Protein backbone atom coordinates (compact mmCIF):
# COMPACT_ATOMS: atom_id res chain seq x y z
CA UNK A 1 0.00 0.00 0.00
CA UNK A 2 2.93 2.34 0.77
CA UNK A 3 4.20 2.78 -2.80
CA UNK A 4 0.63 3.24 -4.12
CA UNK A 5 0.00 5.95 -1.56
CA UNK A 6 3.32 7.67 -2.32
CA UNK A 7 2.62 7.48 -6.05
CA UNK A 8 -0.81 9.05 -5.49
CA UNK A 9 0.73 11.86 -3.47
CA UNK A 10 3.18 12.60 -6.31
CA UNK A 11 0.31 12.79 -8.78
CA UNK A 12 -2.22 14.54 -6.58
CA UNK A 13 -3.90 16.76 -9.13
CA UNK A 14 -5.49 13.86 -11.01
CA UNK A 15 -6.98 12.36 -7.91
CA UNK A 16 -7.89 15.35 -5.75
CA UNK A 17 -10.89 16.21 -7.92
CA UNK A 18 -12.37 12.75 -7.71
CA UNK A 19 -11.74 12.59 -3.96
CA UNK A 20 -13.46 15.98 -3.68
CA UNK A 21 -16.38 14.70 -5.71
CA UNK A 22 -16.66 11.69 -3.41
CA UNK A 23 -16.49 14.01 -0.39
CA UNK A 24 -19.27 16.25 -1.72
CA UNK A 25 -21.43 13.27 -2.65
CA UNK A 26 -20.89 11.84 0.80
CA UNK A 27 -21.76 15.15 2.52
CA UNK A 28 -24.91 15.58 0.44
CA UNK A 29 -25.83 11.91 0.80
CA UNK A 30 -25.57 12.00 4.59
CA UNK A 31 -27.61 15.18 4.93
CA UNK A 32 -30.17 14.01 2.40
CA UNK A 33 -30.51 10.81 4.40
CA UNK A 34 -30.95 12.91 7.56
CA UNK A 35 -33.77 14.88 5.89
CA UNK A 36 -35.31 11.71 4.47
CA UNK A 37 -35.18 10.07 7.90
CA UNK A 38 -36.75 13.13 9.49
CA UNK A 39 -39.54 13.28 6.92
CA UNK A 40 -40.09 9.54 7.05
CA UNK A 41 -40.32 9.70 10.82
CA UNK A 42 -42.98 12.43 10.56
CA UNK A 43 -44.84 10.51 7.87
CA UNK A 44 -44.62 7.32 9.85
CA UNK A 45 -46.37 8.72 12.93
CA UNK A 46 -49.66 6.87 13.39
CA UNK A 47 -52.75 9.05 13.30
CA UNK A 48 -54.40 6.73 15.78
CA UNK A 49 -57.43 6.08 13.58
CA UNK A 50 -58.29 3.09 11.40
CA UNK A 51 -56.89 4.69 8.26
CA UNK A 52 -57.38 1.77 5.90
CA UNK A 53 -61.13 1.60 6.40
CA UNK A 54 -62.20 5.20 6.87
CA UNK A 55 -63.54 7.76 4.39
CA UNK A 56 -65.26 11.08 4.61
CA UNK A 57 -68.15 12.44 2.56
CA UNK A 58 -69.89 15.85 2.50
CA UNK A 59 -73.48 16.93 2.20
CA UNK A 60 -74.05 20.56 1.16
CA UNK A 61 -77.61 21.80 1.12
CA UNK A 62 -78.99 25.04 -0.25
CA UNK A 63 -82.56 24.47 0.90
CA UNK A 64 -83.62 27.47 3.05
CA UNK A 65 -86.19 25.24 4.81
CA UNK A 66 -83.69 22.49 5.57
CA UNK A 67 -84.32 20.58 8.81
CA UNK A 68 -80.64 20.03 9.50
CA UNK A 69 -80.95 17.80 12.57
CA UNK A 70 -83.50 15.57 10.84
CA UNK A 71 -81.32 15.37 7.75
CA UNK A 72 -78.28 14.31 9.80
CA UNK A 73 -80.29 11.74 11.74
CA UNK A 74 -81.72 10.25 8.53
CA UNK A 75 -78.34 10.30 6.77
CA UNK A 76 -76.53 8.61 9.66
CA UNK A 77 -79.30 6.05 9.98
CA UNK A 78 -78.95 5.28 6.27
CA UNK A 79 -75.15 5.07 6.39
CA UNK A 80 -74.93 3.01 9.60
CA UNK A 81 -77.39 0.46 8.23
CA UNK A 82 -75.64 0.15 4.88
CA UNK A 83 -74.04 -3.27 4.33
CA UNK A 84 -70.29 -3.20 4.89
CA UNK A 85 -70.40 -0.11 7.14
CA UNK A 86 -69.09 -0.51 10.70
CA UNK A 87 -70.09 2.92 11.98
CA UNK A 88 -70.43 6.57 10.97
CA UNK A 89 -70.37 9.94 12.68
CA UNK A 90 -71.04 13.60 11.97
CA UNK A 91 -67.87 15.50 12.75
CA UNK A 92 -66.00 18.67 11.93
CA UNK A 93 -62.64 17.24 10.87
CA UNK A 94 -60.30 14.28 10.93
CA UNK A 95 -56.57 13.76 11.51
CA UNK A 96 -54.22 15.09 8.80
CA UNK A 97 -57.02 17.05 7.12
CA UNK A 98 -55.01 20.23 7.78
CA UNK A 99 -58.16 22.15 8.76
CA UNK A 100 -60.05 22.01 12.05
CA UNK A 101 -60.81 23.64 15.36
CA UNK A 102 -58.69 24.14 18.42
CA UNK A 103 -59.32 25.43 21.88
CA UNK A 104 -57.43 25.94 25.12
CA UNK A 105 -57.97 23.72 28.17
CA UNK A 106 -56.73 24.64 31.63
CA UNK A 107 -56.69 22.72 34.91
CA UNK A 108 -57.85 25.73 36.88
CA UNK A 109 -60.52 28.32 36.12
CA UNK A 110 -59.74 31.96 35.51
CA UNK A 111 -58.38 34.30 32.90
CA UNK A 112 -54.82 33.82 34.05
CA UNK A 113 -54.72 30.05 33.94
CA UNK A 114 -52.24 28.49 31.56
CA UNK A 115 -54.35 26.82 28.90
CA UNK A 116 -53.00 23.96 26.77
CA UNK A 117 -54.01 24.04 23.10
CA UNK A 118 -56.03 21.05 21.95
CA UNK A 119 -57.67 20.00 18.67
CA UNK A 120 -61.43 19.49 18.86
CA UNK A 121 -63.41 16.74 17.20
CA UNK A 122 -67.17 17.12 17.61
CA UNK A 123 -68.67 13.62 17.71
CA UNK A 124 -71.46 11.62 19.27
CA UNK A 125 -71.30 8.24 21.00
CA UNK A 126 -70.30 6.71 17.64
CA UNK A 127 -67.07 8.77 17.38
CA UNK A 128 -64.78 6.27 19.11
CA UNK A 129 -66.12 3.34 17.08
CA UNK A 130 -66.10 5.22 13.78
CA UNK A 131 -62.52 6.39 14.05
CA UNK A 132 -61.46 3.02 15.42
CA UNK A 133 -59.57 4.56 18.31
CA UNK A 134 -58.60 2.73 21.50
CA UNK A 135 -60.13 3.86 24.75
CA UNK A 136 -57.43 3.18 27.37
CA UNK A 137 -59.24 4.56 30.44
CA UNK A 138 -62.74 5.63 31.44
CA UNK A 139 -65.73 5.23 29.17
CA UNK A 140 -67.16 6.26 25.85
CA UNK A 141 -69.89 8.90 25.54
CA UNK A 142 -73.45 7.79 26.22
CA UNK A 143 -76.29 9.15 24.07
CA UNK A 144 -77.23 11.27 27.09
CA UNK A 145 -73.84 12.99 27.03
CA UNK A 146 -74.39 14.20 23.46
CA UNK A 147 -76.21 17.42 22.66
CA UNK A 148 -76.85 19.61 19.67
CA UNK A 149 -75.18 22.98 19.68
CA UNK A 150 -77.80 25.66 20.31
CA UNK A 151 -76.74 29.04 18.92
CA UNK A 152 -79.68 30.70 20.67
CA UNK A 153 -78.48 30.74 24.24
CA UNK A 154 -77.89 27.06 25.04
CA UNK A 155 -74.74 25.88 26.82
CA UNK A 156 -71.69 26.46 24.62
CA UNK A 157 -69.98 23.24 25.67
CA UNK A 158 -71.17 19.86 26.92
CA UNK A 159 -70.28 18.63 30.40
CA UNK A 160 -68.02 15.72 29.41
CA UNK A 161 -65.00 15.24 27.18
CA UNK A 162 -62.63 12.48 26.10
CA UNK A 163 -58.93 13.38 25.78
CA UNK A 164 -56.06 11.86 23.89
CA UNK A 165 -53.46 10.44 26.26
CA UNK A 166 -50.93 13.07 25.11
CA UNK A 167 -53.39 15.84 26.03
CA UNK A 168 -54.16 14.23 29.39
CA UNK A 169 -50.43 14.02 30.15
CA UNK A 170 -49.95 17.63 29.07
CA UNK A 171 -52.58 18.73 31.59
CA UNK A 172 -51.72 16.28 34.36
CA UNK A 173 -48.11 15.21 33.81
CA UNK A 174 -47.83 13.45 37.17
CA UNK A 175 -50.95 11.27 36.71
CA UNK A 176 -51.73 8.04 34.97
CA UNK A 177 -54.52 7.90 32.39
CA UNK A 178 -56.83 6.21 34.91
CA UNK A 179 -56.15 8.91 37.49
CA UNK A 180 -57.22 11.61 35.05
CA UNK A 181 -60.73 10.13 34.75
CA UNK A 182 -63.22 12.32 36.61
CA UNK A 183 -60.87 15.32 36.75
CA UNK A 184 -62.25 18.66 35.66
CA UNK A 185 -60.67 20.94 33.09
CA UNK A 186 -61.76 24.43 32.12
CA UNK A 187 -62.59 25.64 28.65
CA UNK A 188 -63.00 29.28 27.62
CA UNK A 189 -61.41 30.14 30.98
CA UNK A 190 -64.24 29.24 33.31
CA UNK A 191 -66.48 26.53 31.84
CA UNK A 192 -65.86 23.19 33.61
CA UNK A 193 -65.79 19.95 31.62
CA UNK A 194 -65.30 16.52 33.15
CA UNK A 195 -62.85 14.09 31.60
CA UNK A 196 -64.66 10.78 31.26
CA UNK A 197 -62.34 8.88 28.94
CA UNK A 198 -58.78 8.70 27.62
CA UNK A 199 -57.99 7.45 24.13
CA UNK A 200 -54.58 6.09 23.26
CA UNK A 201 -53.99 8.35 20.30
CA UNK A 202 -55.78 10.57 17.80
CA UNK A 203 -53.72 13.15 15.99
CA UNK A 204 -54.88 16.73 15.50
CA UNK A 205 -55.75 17.75 11.91
CA UNK A 206 -52.49 19.75 11.51
CA UNK A 207 -49.43 17.59 10.94
CA UNK A 208 -46.92 20.42 11.48
CA UNK A 209 -48.41 21.52 14.80
CA UNK A 210 -46.10 20.89 17.73
CA UNK A 211 -49.14 19.68 19.71
CA UNK A 212 -50.26 17.30 16.97
CA UNK A 213 -50.82 14.51 19.47
CA UNK A 214 -53.18 16.62 21.63
CA UNK A 215 -56.83 16.14 20.78
CA UNK A 216 -60.23 16.11 22.45
CA UNK A 217 -63.53 14.47 21.59
CA UNK A 218 -66.49 16.70 22.40
CA UNK A 219 -69.98 15.10 22.51
CA UNK A 220 -71.69 17.76 20.50
CA UNK A 221 -73.29 17.92 17.08
CA UNK A 222 -73.35 21.18 15.22
CA UNK A 223 -73.98 22.54 11.74
CA UNK A 224 -76.59 24.29 9.63
CA UNK A 225 -76.34 23.31 5.98
CA UNK A 226 -73.03 21.49 5.58
CA UNK A 227 -72.39 18.04 7.05
CA UNK A 228 -69.16 16.06 7.08
CA UNK A 229 -69.70 12.39 7.72
CA UNK A 230 -66.83 10.07 8.54
CA UNK A 231 -67.59 6.44 7.75
CA UNK A 232 -65.72 3.29 8.76
CA UNK A 233 -66.26 0.16 6.75
CA UNK A 234 -65.45 -3.44 7.32
CA UNK A 235 -61.97 -4.36 6.14
CA UNK A 236 -61.80 -4.54 2.36
CA UNK A 237 -65.19 -2.95 1.68
CA UNK A 238 -64.24 0.72 1.69
CA UNK A 239 -63.79 1.30 -2.03
CA UNK A 240 -66.93 -0.67 -2.80
CA UNK A 241 -69.01 1.19 -0.21
CA UNK A 242 -68.01 4.76 -1.14
CA UNK A 243 -69.98 5.01 -4.43
CA UNK A 244 -72.88 3.17 -2.88
CA UNK A 245 -73.11 5.64 0.01
CA UNK A 246 -72.69 8.59 -2.38
CA UNK A 247 -75.61 7.33 -4.43
CA UNK A 248 -77.77 6.39 -1.44
CA UNK A 249 -77.34 9.81 0.14
CA UNK A 250 -78.00 11.60 -3.12
CA UNK A 251 -81.08 9.48 -3.76
CA UNK A 252 -82.45 10.00 -0.27
CA UNK A 253 -82.52 13.75 -0.66
CA UNK A 254 -82.10 15.19 -4.14
CA UNK A 255 -82.08 18.83 -3.01
CA UNK A 256 -78.38 18.85 -2.04
CA UNK A 257 -74.91 18.05 -3.25
CA UNK A 258 -73.12 14.93 -2.04
CA UNK A 259 -69.45 15.53 -2.60
CA UNK A 260 -65.89 15.24 -1.33
CA UNK A 261 -65.71 11.49 -0.86
CA UNK A 262 -62.11 10.93 0.19
CA UNK A 263 -60.44 8.02 1.86
CA UNK A 264 -58.27 8.55 4.91
CA UNK A 265 -55.38 7.18 2.84
CA UNK A 266 -55.92 10.00 0.34
CA UNK A 267 -56.14 12.52 3.17
CA UNK A 268 -52.78 11.25 4.45
CA UNK A 269 -51.24 11.29 0.98
CA UNK A 270 -52.42 14.88 0.43
CA UNK A 271 -51.13 15.97 3.84
CA UNK A 272 -47.70 14.49 3.21
CA UNK A 273 -47.53 15.29 -0.49
CA UNK A 274 -44.66 17.76 -0.09
CA UNK A 275 -42.78 15.44 2.25
CA UNK A 276 -43.03 12.45 -0.05
CA UNK A 277 -42.13 14.65 -3.04
CA UNK A 278 -39.12 15.91 -1.08
CA UNK A 279 -38.05 12.34 -0.26
CA UNK A 280 -38.37 11.31 -3.92
CA UNK A 281 -36.42 14.37 -5.04
CA UNK A 282 -33.65 13.75 -2.51
CA UNK A 283 -33.43 10.07 -3.41
CA UNK A 284 -33.20 11.09 -7.07
CA UNK A 285 -30.52 13.72 -6.40
CA UNK A 286 -28.43 11.39 -4.22
CA UNK A 287 -28.77 8.58 -6.79
CA UNK A 288 -27.80 10.96 -9.57
CA UNK A 289 -24.81 12.27 -7.62
CA UNK A 290 -23.70 8.74 -6.78
CA UNK A 291 -24.07 7.76 -10.43
CA UNK A 292 -22.08 10.81 -11.55
CA UNK A 293 -19.40 10.05 -8.96
CA UNK A 294 -19.16 6.43 -10.02
CA UNK A 295 -18.96 7.50 -13.66
CA UNK A 296 -16.20 9.90 -12.60
CA UNK A 297 -14.37 7.02 -10.95
CA UNK A 298 -14.83 4.85 -14.04
CA UNK A 299 -13.55 7.73 -16.22
CA UNK A 300 -10.53 8.46 -14.06
CA UNK A 301 -9.65 4.80 -13.65
CA UNK A 302 -10.08 4.14 -17.39
CA UNK A 303 -7.89 7.13 -18.21
CA UNK A 304 -5.39 6.01 -15.62
CA UNK A 305 -5.27 2.48 -17.06
CA UNK A 306 -4.90 3.80 -20.62
CA UNK A 307 -2.15 6.20 -19.54
CA UNK A 308 -0.27 3.48 -17.67
CA UNK A 309 -0.60 0.62 -20.13
CA UNK A 310 3.16 0.35 -20.51
CA UNK A 311 3.67 0.60 -16.77
CA UNK A 312 1.15 -2.21 -16.26
CA UNK A 313 3.00 -4.28 -18.87
CA UNK A 314 6.26 -3.57 -17.05
CA UNK A 315 4.79 -4.64 -13.73
CA UNK A 316 3.50 -7.82 -15.37
CA UNK A 317 6.97 -8.42 -16.86
CA UNK A 318 8.50 -7.95 -13.42
CA UNK A 319 6.29 -10.65 -11.96
CA UNK A 320 2.87 -9.16 -11.24
CA UNK A 321 0.05 -11.61 -11.77
CA UNK A 322 -3.26 -10.45 -13.25
CA UNK A 323 -4.62 -10.58 -9.74
CA UNK A 324 -1.85 -8.26 -8.48
CA UNK A 325 -2.74 -5.71 -11.16
CA UNK A 326 -6.45 -5.94 -10.34
CA UNK A 327 -5.63 -5.50 -6.67
CA UNK A 328 -3.38 -2.54 -7.42
CA UNK A 329 -6.17 -0.55 -9.09
CA UNK A 330 -8.77 -1.60 -6.53
CA UNK A 331 -6.45 -0.56 -3.73
CA UNK A 332 -5.62 2.72 -5.44
CA UNK A 333 -9.33 3.49 -5.72
CA UNK A 334 -9.84 2.45 -2.10
CA UNK A 335 -7.21 4.97 -1.00
CA UNK A 336 -8.73 7.77 -3.11
CA UNK A 337 -12.21 6.85 -1.82
CA UNK A 338 -10.93 6.80 1.75
CA UNK A 339 -9.60 10.34 1.42
CA UNK A 340 -12.94 11.30 -0.15
CA UNK A 341 -15.17 9.66 2.44
CA UNK A 342 -13.11 10.92 5.38
CA UNK A 343 -13.31 14.46 3.99
CA UNK A 344 -16.96 13.84 3.25
CA UNK A 345 -17.62 12.69 6.81
CA UNK A 346 -16.17 15.91 8.23
CA UNK A 347 -18.08 18.00 5.66
CA UNK A 348 -21.31 16.06 6.27
CA UNK A 349 -21.17 16.60 10.02
CA UNK A 350 -20.33 20.31 9.56
CA UNK A 351 -23.26 20.81 7.16
CA UNK A 352 -25.54 18.89 9.50
CA UNK A 353 -24.58 21.00 12.49
CA UNK A 354 -25.34 24.08 10.38
CA UNK A 355 -28.67 22.67 9.19
CA UNK A 356 -29.65 21.71 12.74
CA UNK A 357 -29.00 25.30 13.81
CA UNK A 358 -30.69 26.99 10.84
CA UNK A 359 -33.59 24.63 10.07
CA UNK A 360 -34.06 22.98 13.48
CA UNK A 361 -33.44 19.62 11.83
CA UNK A 362 -32.86 16.56 14.01
CA UNK A 363 -29.11 15.74 14.09
CA UNK A 364 -28.07 12.80 11.94
CA UNK A 365 -28.10 9.40 13.57
CA UNK A 366 -24.55 8.26 14.43
CA UNK A 367 -24.69 5.27 12.09
CA UNK A 368 -25.55 7.25 8.94
CA UNK A 369 -21.95 8.47 8.46
CA UNK A 370 -20.27 5.01 8.59
CA UNK A 371 -23.07 3.53 6.48
CA UNK A 372 -22.62 6.26 3.82
CA UNK A 373 -18.82 5.73 3.94
CA UNK A 374 -19.30 2.02 3.41
CA UNK A 375 -21.79 2.65 0.58
CA UNK A 376 -19.37 4.97 -1.24
CA UNK A 377 -16.46 2.59 -0.70
CA UNK A 378 -18.53 -0.16 -2.29
CA UNK A 379 -19.68 2.14 -5.12
CA UNK A 380 -16.03 3.09 -5.74
CA UNK A 381 -14.87 -0.52 -5.77
CA UNK A 382 -17.67 -1.55 -8.13
CA UNK A 383 -16.98 1.44 -10.40
CA UNK A 384 -13.27 0.66 -10.64
CA UNK A 385 -13.80 -3.05 -11.18
CA UNK A 386 -14.27 -2.72 -14.97
CA UNK A 387 -11.17 -0.59 -15.63
CA UNK A 388 -9.16 -2.69 -13.15
CA UNK A 389 -10.12 -5.87 -14.98
CA UNK A 390 -9.09 -4.27 -18.25
CA UNK A 391 -5.78 -3.35 -16.66
CA UNK A 392 -5.27 -6.93 -15.52
CA UNK A 393 -5.70 -8.09 -19.11
CA UNK A 394 -2.79 -5.94 -20.36
CA UNK A 395 -0.18 -8.27 -21.81
CA UNK A 396 3.25 -8.35 -20.19
CA UNK A 397 4.64 -8.10 -23.73
CA UNK A 398 3.47 -4.46 -23.70
CA UNK A 399 6.63 -3.75 -21.73
CA UNK A 400 8.84 -4.36 -24.75
CA UNK A 401 6.72 -2.44 -27.26
CA UNK A 402 7.92 1.00 -28.14
CA UNK A 403 4.97 3.36 -27.66
Amino acid sequence: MGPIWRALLRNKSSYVLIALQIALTMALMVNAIAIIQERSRLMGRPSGVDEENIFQIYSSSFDPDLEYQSMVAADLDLIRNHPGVVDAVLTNSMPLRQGGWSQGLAIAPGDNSDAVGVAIYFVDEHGVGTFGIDLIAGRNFLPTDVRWFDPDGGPRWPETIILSNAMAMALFPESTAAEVIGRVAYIENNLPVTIIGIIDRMQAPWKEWSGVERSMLVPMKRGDDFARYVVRTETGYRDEVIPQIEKALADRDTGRIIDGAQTMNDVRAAAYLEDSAMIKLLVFIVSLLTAITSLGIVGLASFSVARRTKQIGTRRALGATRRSILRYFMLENFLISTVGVLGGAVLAVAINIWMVQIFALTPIAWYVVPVAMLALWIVGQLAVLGPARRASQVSPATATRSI
Partner: protein
Amino acid sequence: MLSMQNISMVYRTETVETHALRDFSLDVEEGEFVSVTGPSGSGKTTFLNIAGLLEGFTSGRYSLDGKDTTQLDDASRSRLRNEKIGFIFQSFNLIPELDIFDNVDVPLRYRGFDSAERRRRIDSVLDMVGLASRKKHLPSQLSGGQQQRVAIARALAGEPRFLLADEPTGNLDSAMADSVMELLEDINSKGTTIIMVTHEPSLAARARRNIFVRDGQLSVEDAGLKVAIGS
Protein backbone atom coordinates in the same frame (compact mmCIF):
# COMPACT_ATOMS: atom_id res chain seq x y z
CA MET B 1 19.68 -23.00 -18.82
CA LEU B 2 17.48 -21.89 -21.73
CA SER B 3 16.39 -24.34 -24.36
CA MET B 4 14.09 -23.53 -27.29
CA GLN B 5 13.17 -26.37 -29.61
CA ASN B 6 11.43 -25.67 -32.92
CA ILE B 7 9.57 -22.64 -31.64
CA SER B 8 7.11 -21.07 -34.06
CA MET B 9 5.07 -18.00 -33.47
CA VAL B 10 2.31 -17.04 -35.85
CA TYR B 11 0.21 -13.89 -35.49
CA ARG B 12 -3.10 -14.27 -37.25
CA THR B 13 -5.58 -11.61 -38.23
CA GLU B 14 -8.63 -12.11 -40.44
CA THR B 15 -6.64 -11.51 -43.57
CA VAL B 16 -2.98 -11.91 -42.73
CA GLU B 17 -0.87 -14.61 -41.14
CA THR B 18 2.51 -13.40 -39.95
CA HIS B 19 5.25 -15.86 -39.02
CA ALA B 20 7.26 -13.99 -36.42
CA LEU B 21 9.40 -17.04 -35.56
CA ARG B 22 9.78 -20.19 -37.64
CA ASP B 23 11.17 -23.40 -36.31
CA PHE B 24 13.47 -21.48 -33.99
CA SER B 25 15.85 -23.53 -31.85
CA LEU B 26 18.43 -22.20 -29.44
CA ASP B 27 20.25 -23.38 -26.34
CA VAL B 28 21.91 -20.97 -23.97
CA GLU B 29 24.19 -22.33 -21.28
CA GLU B 30 24.55 -20.98 -17.79
CA GLY B 31 26.91 -18.00 -17.59
CA GLU B 32 26.76 -17.13 -21.27
CA PHE B 33 26.48 -13.59 -22.62
CA VAL B 34 24.56 -13.88 -25.87
CA SER B 35 23.75 -10.99 -28.17
CA VAL B 36 20.82 -11.18 -30.57
CA THR B 37 20.93 -9.02 -33.64
CA GLY B 38 18.89 -8.75 -36.77
CA PRO B 39 17.05 -6.25 -38.94
CA SER B 40 13.78 -4.63 -37.90
CA GLY B 41 10.89 -7.07 -38.05
CA SER B 42 13.21 -10.06 -38.03
CA GLY B 43 11.64 -11.52 -34.88
CA LYS B 44 14.18 -10.33 -32.28
CA THR B 45 11.50 -8.87 -30.02
CA THR B 46 9.25 -11.90 -30.43
CA PHE B 47 12.19 -14.11 -29.44
CA LEU B 48 12.83 -11.87 -26.42
CA ASN B 49 9.15 -11.91 -25.41
CA ILE B 50 8.99 -15.69 -25.62
CA ALA B 51 12.31 -16.15 -23.84
CA GLY B 52 11.10 -13.79 -21.10
CA LEU B 53 7.72 -15.56 -20.82
CA LEU B 54 6.05 -12.29 -21.81
CA GLU B 55 4.03 -14.09 -24.45
CA GLY B 56 3.31 -17.62 -25.52
CA PHE B 57 4.14 -19.34 -28.79
CA THR B 58 2.25 -21.29 -31.42
CA SER B 59 4.28 -24.51 -31.40
CA GLY B 60 7.56 -25.94 -30.16
CA ARG B 61 9.03 -26.44 -26.74
CA TYR B 62 10.69 -24.03 -24.35
CA SER B 63 12.42 -24.97 -21.10
CA LEU B 64 13.81 -22.46 -18.69
CA ASP B 65 16.24 -23.57 -16.04
CA GLY B 66 15.07 -27.12 -16.58
CA LYS B 67 11.37 -26.27 -16.30
CA ASP B 68 9.10 -26.85 -19.31
CA THR B 69 7.11 -23.64 -19.76
CA THR B 70 4.78 -24.89 -22.48
CA GLN B 71 1.80 -25.77 -20.26
CA LEU B 72 2.22 -23.12 -17.58
CA ASP B 73 -0.76 -20.92 -16.74
CA ASP B 74 -0.50 -17.14 -16.55
CA ALA B 75 0.07 -16.97 -12.79
CA SER B 76 2.83 -19.62 -12.92
CA ARG B 77 4.51 -17.79 -15.80
CA SER B 78 4.37 -14.58 -13.74
CA ARG B 79 6.01 -16.33 -10.80
CA LEU B 80 8.68 -17.87 -13.00
CA ARG B 81 9.43 -14.49 -14.61
CA ASN B 82 9.71 -12.93 -11.21
CA GLU B 83 12.05 -15.58 -9.83
CA LYS B 84 14.27 -16.45 -12.79
CA ILE B 85 14.39 -13.48 -15.13
CA GLY B 86 15.56 -9.90 -14.83
CA PHE B 87 14.42 -7.50 -17.55
CA ILE B 88 16.25 -4.48 -18.87
CA PHE B 89 14.27 -2.39 -21.36
CA GLN B 90 15.38 0.06 -24.02
CA SER B 91 13.38 2.91 -22.50
CA PHE B 92 14.17 1.80 -18.93
CA ASN B 93 10.45 1.39 -18.05
CA LEU B 94 10.86 2.92 -14.63
CA ILE B 95 7.64 3.96 -12.94
CA PRO B 96 7.70 7.75 -12.97
CA GLU B 97 5.63 8.25 -9.80
CA LEU B 98 7.88 6.01 -7.70
CA ASP B 99 11.28 6.99 -6.36
CA ILE B 100 14.33 4.88 -7.11
CA PHE B 101 13.98 2.79 -3.96
CA ASP B 102 10.33 1.96 -4.70
CA ASN B 103 11.11 1.22 -8.36
CA VAL B 104 13.70 -1.38 -7.41
CA ASP B 105 11.25 -2.67 -4.82
CA VAL B 106 8.54 -3.51 -7.41
CA PRO B 107 9.62 -7.09 -8.33
CA LEU B 108 10.65 -7.83 -4.74
CA ARG B 109 7.14 -7.07 -3.49
CA TYR B 110 5.70 -9.44 -6.09
CA ARG B 111 8.11 -12.07 -4.81
CA GLY B 112 6.72 -11.64 -1.30
CA PHE B 113 9.96 -10.85 0.58
CA ASP B 114 9.57 -9.17 3.96
CA SER B 115 10.48 -5.52 4.25
CA ALA B 116 13.88 -6.10 5.90
CA GLU B 117 14.94 -8.49 3.15
CA ARG B 118 13.71 -6.12 0.47
CA ARG B 119 15.59 -3.22 2.01
CA ARG B 120 18.80 -5.26 2.23
CA ARG B 121 18.57 -6.28 -1.42
CA ILE B 122 17.66 -2.79 -2.66
CA ASP B 123 20.52 -1.18 -0.75
CA SER B 124 22.90 -3.83 -2.08
CA VAL B 125 21.98 -3.48 -5.78
CA LEU B 126 21.77 0.31 -5.69
CA ASP B 127 25.22 0.31 -4.14
CA MET B 128 26.44 -2.02 -6.89
CA VAL B 129 25.21 0.29 -9.68
CA GLY B 130 26.57 3.32 -7.86
CA LEU B 131 23.26 4.98 -7.06
CA ALA B 132 22.93 4.33 -3.33
CA SER B 133 22.76 8.05 -2.65
CA ARG B 134 19.90 8.60 -5.09
CA LYS B 135 17.28 6.28 -3.71
CA LYS B 136 14.84 9.06 -2.82
CA HIS B 137 15.15 10.62 -6.26
CA LEU B 138 12.48 10.25 -8.88
CA PRO B 139 13.45 8.78 -12.27
CA SER B 140 12.92 12.18 -13.89
CA GLN B 141 15.69 13.58 -11.68
CA LEU B 142 18.27 11.18 -13.11
CA SER B 143 20.14 11.08 -16.42
CA GLY B 144 19.34 8.39 -18.99
CA GLY B 145 22.42 6.37 -18.00
CA GLN B 146 21.51 6.58 -14.34
CA GLN B 147 17.94 5.52 -15.11
CA GLN B 148 19.21 2.48 -16.98
CA ARG B 149 21.44 1.66 -14.01
CA VAL B 150 18.34 1.79 -11.79
CA ALA B 151 16.59 -0.54 -14.24
CA ILE B 152 19.58 -2.92 -14.05
CA ALA B 153 19.47 -2.73 -10.26
CA ARG B 154 15.76 -3.55 -10.41
CA ALA B 155 16.48 -6.50 -12.70
CA LEU B 156 19.21 -7.80 -10.37
CA ALA B 157 17.47 -7.26 -7.03
CA GLY B 158 15.63 -10.57 -7.22
CA GLU B 159 18.92 -12.38 -8.00
CA PRO B 160 17.58 -13.88 -11.24
CA ARG B 161 19.29 -16.73 -13.11
CA PHE B 162 19.45 -14.65 -16.25
CA LEU B 163 18.96 -11.17 -17.58
CA LEU B 164 17.07 -10.28 -20.73
CA ALA B 165 18.13 -6.93 -22.10
CA ASP B 166 16.17 -5.30 -24.89
CA GLU B 167 18.34 -2.67 -26.59
CA PRO B 168 19.71 -1.65 -23.16
CA THR B 169 21.82 1.16 -24.60
CA GLY B 170 19.43 2.20 -27.36
CA ASN B 171 18.46 5.43 -25.67
CA LEU B 172 21.87 6.35 -24.35
CA ASP B 173 24.80 8.33 -25.72
CA SER B 174 27.97 6.41 -26.38
CA ALA B 175 29.69 7.21 -23.09
CA MET B 176 26.68 6.16 -21.09
CA ALA B 177 26.16 3.13 -23.35
CA ASP B 178 29.73 2.09 -22.70
CA SER B 179 29.31 2.38 -18.97
CA VAL B 180 26.11 0.32 -19.05
CA MET B 181 27.85 -2.32 -21.16
CA GLU B 182 30.70 -2.47 -18.69
CA LEU B 183 28.19 -3.00 -15.93
CA LEU B 184 26.52 -5.85 -17.86
CA GLU B 185 29.90 -7.45 -18.55
CA ASP B 186 30.73 -7.20 -14.88
CA ILE B 187 27.41 -8.83 -13.94
CA ASN B 188 28.00 -11.58 -16.47
CA SER B 189 31.49 -12.19 -15.13
CA LYS B 190 29.90 -12.91 -11.74
CA GLY B 191 27.86 -15.74 -13.28
CA THR B 192 24.56 -14.24 -14.43
CA THR B 193 23.50 -15.41 -17.88
CA ILE B 194 22.64 -12.49 -20.18
CA ILE B 195 20.75 -12.39 -23.45
CA MET B 196 20.89 -8.98 -25.05
CA VAL B 197 18.95 -7.84 -28.11
CA THR B 198 20.74 -5.04 -29.90
CA HIS B 199 21.13 -3.58 -33.34
CA GLU B 200 24.53 -2.13 -32.51
CA PRO B 201 27.20 -4.44 -34.03
CA SER B 202 29.90 -3.00 -31.81
CA LEU B 203 27.93 -3.88 -28.68
CA ALA B 204 26.93 -7.26 -30.06
CA ALA B 205 30.56 -8.00 -30.62
CA ARG B 206 31.25 -7.57 -26.91
CA ALA B 207 29.05 -10.58 -26.14
CA ARG B 208 30.67 -14.00 -25.91
CA ARG B 209 28.27 -15.42 -28.46
CA ASN B 210 26.27 -13.73 -31.15
CA ILE B 211 23.15 -14.94 -32.88
CA PHE B 212 21.57 -13.38 -35.91
CA VAL B 213 17.84 -13.53 -36.59
CA ARG B 214 16.38 -13.04 -40.05
CA ASP B 215 12.79 -13.71 -41.11
CA GLY B 216 12.03 -15.37 -37.82
CA GLN B 217 14.82 -17.88 -38.10
CA LEU B 218 18.22 -18.27 -36.56
CA SER B 219 20.37 -17.23 -39.46
CA VAL B 220 24.02 -17.29 -38.49
CA GLU B 221 25.70 -17.89 -35.18
CA ASP B 222 29.05 -16.82 -33.75
CA ALA B 223 31.45 -15.98 -36.55
CA GLY B 224 28.50 -15.62 -38.88
CA LEU B 225 27.65 -12.38 -37.16
CA LYS B 226 30.83 -10.83 -38.50
CA VAL B 227 29.80 -11.95 -41.96
CA ALA B 228 26.45 -10.35 -41.48
CA ILE B 229 27.98 -7.14 -40.21
CA GLY B 230 30.41 -7.08 -43.02
CA SER B 231 27.77 -7.62 -45.71
